[in-house]
């Protein structure tokens, strides 16, 4: 009995599905016909800020990282949880064990049910978390994105770990100081079209154009494609091609650690200065063996700390997330909200032999 109907049924289903699809071709719902759809209104738009309101006691904050058990995120969140104790709030970290796009959704629902005062999220997918975050906001829960932004209609604030301009310019300042403001330098970047790196390199070039760096010459920008092996070989190539090279800036964690590994095992150790953006765990041995004196990244502890204070200020009504509002962030001092509800953490944090052992990520 299954036999007779199967084939006819299957083909008629396929045909009718396709017919339905074709019929819709004429005037269906397309990206263009809906692109003018207005963004969901921010529920808190009508609220007004009272900068003098005291920070409420007993605020419930929840950190929702991209995934738990990620050493970097753990440092950020623990610092935020510690910060909450300073203003007598209760903070916790919950989150999924995988960083897939949708895994944060059920946690947001849970936090809504638990009636948290604020959710601090490092979004895995800027859009996938949007619906549930809007739902949370409609129940009066404040949303602070940190580390990785959610779509800006769905959160009140974004704590940006570093401004691109500062990241770029500060690396030139660091290198210049270490090579005595004179000599040939090179940049070892990620891929040729990496957005972050290219933005930073532009700012490096602007910084180098200043008169105080007139004796420093950028001879080459090399690309290691964020591949360890390639970055290693590019470093080797740079040092052979430019024997007088005094310094290398590598604004990528893969590049700087590969370059450090090459230099530490070569005759250039101690002669060529290397700096850039790296993580303490990758760079520790090279700082200890003297290959690298200092390198930069943001301070994850400060990131969590600032996010925690920002959430408290929002939940206490001191700020609403509008540009120009200010709030006090404990030991980090007063912070101002910039365009699109962004708060910038500050200049990059410099790691050296003195402080590198305080960090494990």
């Amino acid at each position, binding site marked *: *009995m*299954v*036999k007779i109907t*199967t084939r006819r049924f*299957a083909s008629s*289903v*396929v045909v009718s*599905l*396709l017919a*339905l*699809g*074709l*019929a*819709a*071709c004429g*005037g*269906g*719902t*397309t*990206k*263009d*016909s*809906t*692109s003018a*759809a207005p963004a969901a209104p921010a529920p808190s738009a009508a609220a007004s800020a009272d900068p003098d309101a005291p920070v409420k006691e007993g605020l419930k904050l929840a950190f929702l990282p991209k995934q*738990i058990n990620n050493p970097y995120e753990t440092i950020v969140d623990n610092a935020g949880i510690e910060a909450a104790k300073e203003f007598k709030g209760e903070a*916790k970290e*919950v*989150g*999924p*064990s*995988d960083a*897939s*796009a*949708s895994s944060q*959704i*059920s*946690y947001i*629902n*849970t936090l*809504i*049910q*638990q*009636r948290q005062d604020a959710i601090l999220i490092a979004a895995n*997918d*800027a*859009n*996938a978390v*949007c*619906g549930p975050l809007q739902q949370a906001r409609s129940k009066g829960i404040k949303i602070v994105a940190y580390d990785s932004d959610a*779509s800006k209609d769905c959160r009140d604030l974004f704590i940006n770990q570093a401004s691109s301009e500062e990241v770029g310019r500060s690396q030139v300042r660091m290198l210049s100081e270490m090579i005595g403001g004179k000599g040939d330098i090179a940049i070892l970047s990620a891929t040729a079209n990496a957005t972050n790196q290219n933005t930073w390199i532009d700012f490096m070039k602007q910084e180098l154009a200043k008169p105080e760096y007139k004796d420093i010459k950028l001879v080459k920008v090399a690309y290691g494609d964020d591949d360890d092996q390639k970055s290693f070989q590019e470093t080797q190539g740079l040092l052979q091609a430019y024997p007088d090279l005094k310094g290398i800036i590598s604004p990528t964690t893969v590049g700087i650690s590969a370059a450090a590994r090459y230099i530490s095992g070569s005759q250039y150790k101690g002669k060529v200065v290397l700096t850039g953006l790296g993580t303490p765990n990758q760079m520790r041995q090279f700082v200890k063996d003297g290959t690298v004196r200092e390198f930069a990244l943001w301070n994850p502890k400060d990131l969590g700390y600032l996010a925690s204070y920002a959430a408290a200020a929002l939940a206490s009504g001191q700020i609403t997330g509008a540009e120009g509002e200010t709030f006090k962030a404990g030991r980090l001092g007063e912070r101002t909200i910039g365009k699109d509800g962004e708060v910038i953490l500050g200049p990059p944090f410099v790691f050296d032999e003195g402080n590198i052992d305080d960090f494990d990520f």
Partner: protein
Amino acid sequence: MAPDPIPAAPVPASAVNRGGAGRFLRWDVLVTALLIAVFLGGASTSTGFASVDNLSFALGDLGEIALIALAMTLLVVAAEVDLSVASVLGLSSALVGALWDAGMAIETIIPLVVVVGMVCGLVNGLLVTRLGLPSLAVTIGTLALYRGLAYVVLGDRAVAQFPPGYVSLAVDNVPGTPIPYPVALFALLAVVTGVVLHATGAGRALFAIGAQEEAAFFAGIRVKRVKLVLFVLSGTVAAFAGVIYTLRYGSARADNGLGIELAVIAAVLLGGVDFDGGKGTLGGVIAGVLLIGLLRNLLMLNDVATEIQSIVTGLLLIVSVLTPRLAALVRRRRRAPAV
């Protein structure tokens, strides 16, 4: 909570089910009892658990898994399995994203990706039935293959901004009820599947195939044809679940639904369907899906760490597979001296 559309009543005494291990200790009844216990326990200990919002969310969050579990139940009853369902879901999601981004109408995209899902299922089915390959091996292969295709289609991009009308169909509740549209669809399909599986000759044919394929063949059942249809059905449902998933999260990505085939199979096994085929009830599977979903929801509400959640689900699954076998063993031991 949605009423269980198929009460876990005894299977209409299909010949193959008689004398099975489940006669003394009906696992699907136990799972339903456990589900009720979890629900009552949660409602009395956790504020927010029994709220309409939370249950409505928890149900909605299970939508895709539940839908896919319907087709999976039929396959497992017939002693086959389809591990590629989550990858078909991902491929469907990636296609929805890519085509939508290219400006195609959503009304065209949806039928198109459902047809792609059918083809995915057809490939699985042909490899299993025409070449006689084990479905476990075939669908592990296509699990990788279809997920790979999803990445070819969309790369690591994410496409968002789907039309609000369609998004609300995936997210909103049926007016006047706490039941999201996809769950309502599931309930409808569950009734149909339940009737087909437990009250028709076609359903009995599936049990027969699962219990004794050769006997079923000689009884006149077109075994290969039936299995082919089941695989096509599974691919189709998975692709449609991919559409719902994409709209519900509002984000089309190639990695959508990664790993949910395991949640589906866990629910099917937890529901008491025998992995060797020939035994099981749809009511049990539905209870299994709900139990996994509500238990996870309850653990999360109580801030139980993710690792512990996995451990609880894993143990539950092992117990569900072990208990009926132990019960059968104990019974045999007891009977042995008497005979």
